[in-house]
C-alpha cells in the first residue's frame, strides 16, 4: 500500500469543500448546468440515463481493506448496494444522488479516495499490472513510477484542459497484463543490453471509433528522465492535437497524422529544453516515494505445503479453482489469488456492498489488508499464504467470487452499455450475461481454454472490444440492436486489433454466433492445447466466417 501524506490529504479535503459549495450553488440555482457540468466532471460525476454516476479513482488499482470497506459503505448508504469495477481499475456508483454526493465524497476522502481526474480532458488514473509488486516475472514494482506520475499530473494546470482525455499505463513485467499498447502513453520498464533498467515509451494507442496500437517512440529512457519525457509528450500533444473535432482530438490521431517518427522528433525537441531542469528525477525523491509503499512482512514459508496438496486431492472444486484462479507469487509459500466478478448470469465487474465488506475482511485475514483491481474487472488478493488457500476459497465461494473462470470464455469484459450509459447505442450486460449462461459448463470452458470476450455497447469501446479474442460491438440499426463481431484481437505484449468477420447480427443471435465461433475453434484446432487465438492465427478468420454466416 502507498501511504498518502499531508499534502494529499489536504488536497482531497479542499476538493470536497469546494465541491460541497458547488453542489449547494447548483441546487440553489446560483450555478447553471452549463457552469456546473465542468465542475462535476472534474470530480468524476457524470449524468447517465436515469441517475448521476460517481467514478472513484483507485490509483494503479491498489486498495486497502479500509478503503474497500468505505466503498461498500458508500454503495450501501448512498447508492443501491453495489458498485461496478471498471477497465480503468476504478469503481463507479450508478445511482448516486447529487444531493448526497458531497457527503459521499467526504466519507471517501476520509480514506484518501476521490473522483478527481476520473473524467474530463486531463490525465486519467494511471493504471498498471494488478500483480504489481508480487509478480515473479516483474523487474520491479511499476506502481512506484505510476505514483511518481500521479503526483506530477494531479491538478497540473497545464494538463487540466488537454484536447481530450489522456490515459497512461505503466508495466514492468515480461508479460503485459496492463494492456499497454491501447494507451495514449505507455511506459514499459525493461533492461537494456547492458543490464540497466529504463523505459520503452509507446504513444498513440487507443480504441474508440479509430483504433490504433501505441507505437514505440523511445526504446530506452533512463529512469531519471521519466517525468521530463512524459511532460514533453503531454506538451507536444497539448500544442499540436486538434481541438476542433472531438473525434480527432486524441493523441492517437496526432501520432497517426504526423507519423510516429515526426511526433518523436517534436517530443525530443521539447524534451531537450526541460530534461536537465527541475523535472530530472532526483533518486532520493524516487526512493522516498518508493519508501511510502508498505510491503508485507512475509513469513518464511515453503512452496507447495502438504496441507494444500491434500486439500486439492480432497475436493475437485477447490482443485479446479486453484488451477484457474491462483498464480505464482514472487515470494516462496505465497500466491496471487484472482477473485472472479463474473458469476454465471451476473454483470461483469459488479460487486455488492456485502461482497466488498467480506472481501475487505478476507484481505485483512489472508492478504495483509491489500486488494487489487484488474482491468479485466476482477479483484485480486495479492499476498495469500498457500496454506491459507483452502480456507480462503471456502469463504470466497460463499460470497460468490470463486467461479473458476478467470481468463476463460465467461470472464467477459463489458461496458455498462445502454442499461446505464447515456452514450451507448445498445446493451452490453445482457449479452454478457447470456454468454455466461451458454458457457456455464466449466468443463467446456476449460476445454476452450484461454478465450477473451470483450463487449462494447457503442463505438467508444469502453469494453475494449477491438482487443478481445472475440470482440462484440453494439450498433443501432433502425432502432434495433445489432452487434458486429471481430476476431483475433489481443491486448497483451503481442497486441492486435480484431478483424470484423461480416455483417452485424441482431441481439437475439449474438450468443448463437459466439457458440458457433467456439464450435468452429474446437473443430479447427490442431490439438486440444492449441489456444483459440493461435488457431485463429493459423487458419485466418475465413473458416470462422463461413461457419457463422453459412446458415444466416
Amino acid at each position, binding site marked *: 500500500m502507498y501511504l498518502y501524506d499531508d499534502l494529499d490529504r489536504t488536497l482531497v479535503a479542499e476538493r470536497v469543500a469546494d465541491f460541497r459549495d458547488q453542489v449547494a450553488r*447548483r*441546487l440553489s*440555482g446560483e450555478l*447553471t*448546468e452549463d457552469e456546473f457540468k465542468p465542475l462535476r466532471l472534474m470530480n468524476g460525476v457524470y*449524468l*447517465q*440515463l*436515469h*441517475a*448521476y454516476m460517481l467514478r472513484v479513482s483507485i490509483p494503479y488499482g491498489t486498495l486497502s481493506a479500509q478503503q474497500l470497506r468505505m466503498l461498500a459503505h458508500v454503495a*450501501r448508504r448512498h447508492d*443501491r*448496494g*453495489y458498485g461496478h469495477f471498471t477497465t480503468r481499475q476504478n469503481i463507479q456508483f450508478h445511482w448516486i*444522488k*447529487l*444531493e448526497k454526493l458531497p457527503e459521499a465524497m467526504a466519507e471517501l476522502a476520509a480514506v484518501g479516495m476521490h473522483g478527481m481526474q476520473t473524467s474530463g480532458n486531463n490525465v486519467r488514473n494511471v493504471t498498471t499490472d494488478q500483480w504489481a509488486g508480487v509478480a515473479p516475472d516483474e523487474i520491479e514494482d511499476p506502481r512506484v513510477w505510476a505514483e511518481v506520475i500521479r503526483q506530477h499530473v494531479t491538478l497540473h494546470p497545464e494538463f487540466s484542459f488537454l484536447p481530450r482525455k489522456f490515459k497512461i499505463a505503466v508495466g514492468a513485467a515480461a508479460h503485459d497484463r496492463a494492456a499497454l499498447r491501447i494507451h495514449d502513453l505507455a511506459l514499459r520498464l525493461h533492461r537494456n543490453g547492458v543490464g540497466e533498467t529504463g523505459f520503452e515509451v509507446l504513444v498513440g494507442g487507443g480504441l474508440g471509433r479509430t483504433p490504433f496500437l501505441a507505437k514505440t517512440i523511445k526504446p530506452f529512457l533512463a529512469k531519471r528522465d521519466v517525468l521530463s519525457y512524459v511532460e514533453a509528450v503531454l506538451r507536444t500533444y497539448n500544442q499540436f492535437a486538434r481541438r476542433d473535432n472531438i473525434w480527432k482530438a486524441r493523441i492517437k490521431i496526432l501520432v497517426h497524422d504526423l507519423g510516429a517518427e515526426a511526433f518523436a522528433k517534436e517530443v525530443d525537441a521539447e524534451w531537450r529544453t526541460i530534461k536537465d531542469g527541475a523535472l530530472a528525477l532526483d533518486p532520493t525523491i524516487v526512493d522516498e516515494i518508493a519508501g511510502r509503499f508498505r510491503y508485507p512482512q512475509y513469513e518464511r514459508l515453503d512452496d507447495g505445503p502438504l496441507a494444500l496438496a491434500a486439500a486439492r486431492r480432497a475436493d475437485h472444486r477447490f482443485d479446479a479453482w486453484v488451477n484457474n484462479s491462483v498464480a505464482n507469487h514472487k515470494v516462496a509459500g505465497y500466491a496471487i489469488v484472482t477473485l472472479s466478478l463474473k458469476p454465471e448470469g*451476473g*454483470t461483469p465487474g*459488479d460487486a*455488492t*456492498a*456485502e*461482497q466488498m465488506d*467480506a472481501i475487505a*475482511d*478476507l484481505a485483512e*485475514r489472508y492478504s495483509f489488508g491489500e486488494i487489487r483491481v484488474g482491468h479485466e474487472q476482477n479483484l485480486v488478493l495479492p499476498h495469500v499464504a498457500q496454506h491459507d488457500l483452502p*480456507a480462503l476459497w*471456502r*469463504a470466497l465461494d*460463499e*460470497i*460468490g467470487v470463486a467461479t473458476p473462470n478467470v481468463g476463460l470464455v465467461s470472464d467477459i469484459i463489458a461496458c455498462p452499455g*445502454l*442499461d*446505464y450509459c447515456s452514450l451507448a447505442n445498445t*446493451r452490453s*450486460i*445482457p449479452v454478457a*450475461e447470456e454468454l455466461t449462461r451458454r458457457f456455464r459448463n466449466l468443463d467446456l470452458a476449460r476445454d476452450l481454454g484461454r478465450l477473451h470476450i470483450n463487449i462494447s455497447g457503442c463505438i467508444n469501446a469502453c469494453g475494449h472490444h477491438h482487443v478481445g479474442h472475440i470482440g462484440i460491438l453494439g450498433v443501432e440499426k433502425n*432502432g434495433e*440492436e445489432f452487434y458486429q463481431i471481430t476476431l483475433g484481437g489481443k491486448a497483451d505484449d503481442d497486441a492486435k486489433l480484431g478483424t470484423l468477420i461480416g455483417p452485424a447480427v441482431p441481439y437475439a443471435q449474438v450468443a448463437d454466433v459466439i457458440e458457433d465461433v467456439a464450435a468452429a475453434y474446437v473443430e479447427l484446432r490442431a490439438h486440444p492445447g492449441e489456444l483459440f487465438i493461435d488457431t485463429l492465427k493459423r487458419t485466418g478468420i475465413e473458416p470462422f466466417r463461413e461457419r457463422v454466416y453459412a446458415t444466416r
Partner: protein
Amino acid sequence: MTSPLEQKIKITGPVMVTANRVGDGAVVYRRADGWTTALVEADITSSAAAARELVNAALADDLNAVGPYIAPVKLNGGGSVEPGNLRESIRRNGPTIRLPEPFALENRFARKKNQDAHVSL
C-alpha cells in the same frame, strides 16, 4: 454546435420532452406546469411547433432539470403511453438486467457465517 433552441425539429409521430431531475438525476417528463416522473402525465404532441414550445420551456427551467430533449412515444389504445424506443424504455423502467440483491446475499452469508466459525468474516 447548434443550440438546441435553434435546432430544426423533425417529428414523425407523437413525442414528449424528457430530462433528468437536478437533485437526484431521476427521469422526468415535461408537462404544462412543470415536470412529472410519470410518463402518462407528460404532455404529448405530434406538432413540431408544440414540441419546440415544450423543449424551450424545459430549457428555461435549468434549476429543476438537466438536458431536456424531444423523444418519441407510442400511444396505445385506452390512453396509455409507452416510450418510443429502447433507450427511453430503459430510462423509464430501469436496466433490463436483474440488479444485484444485497439482502439475499447478506442472509445467505449470515447463515454460513454461523455454520463456519473457522472463517472470520
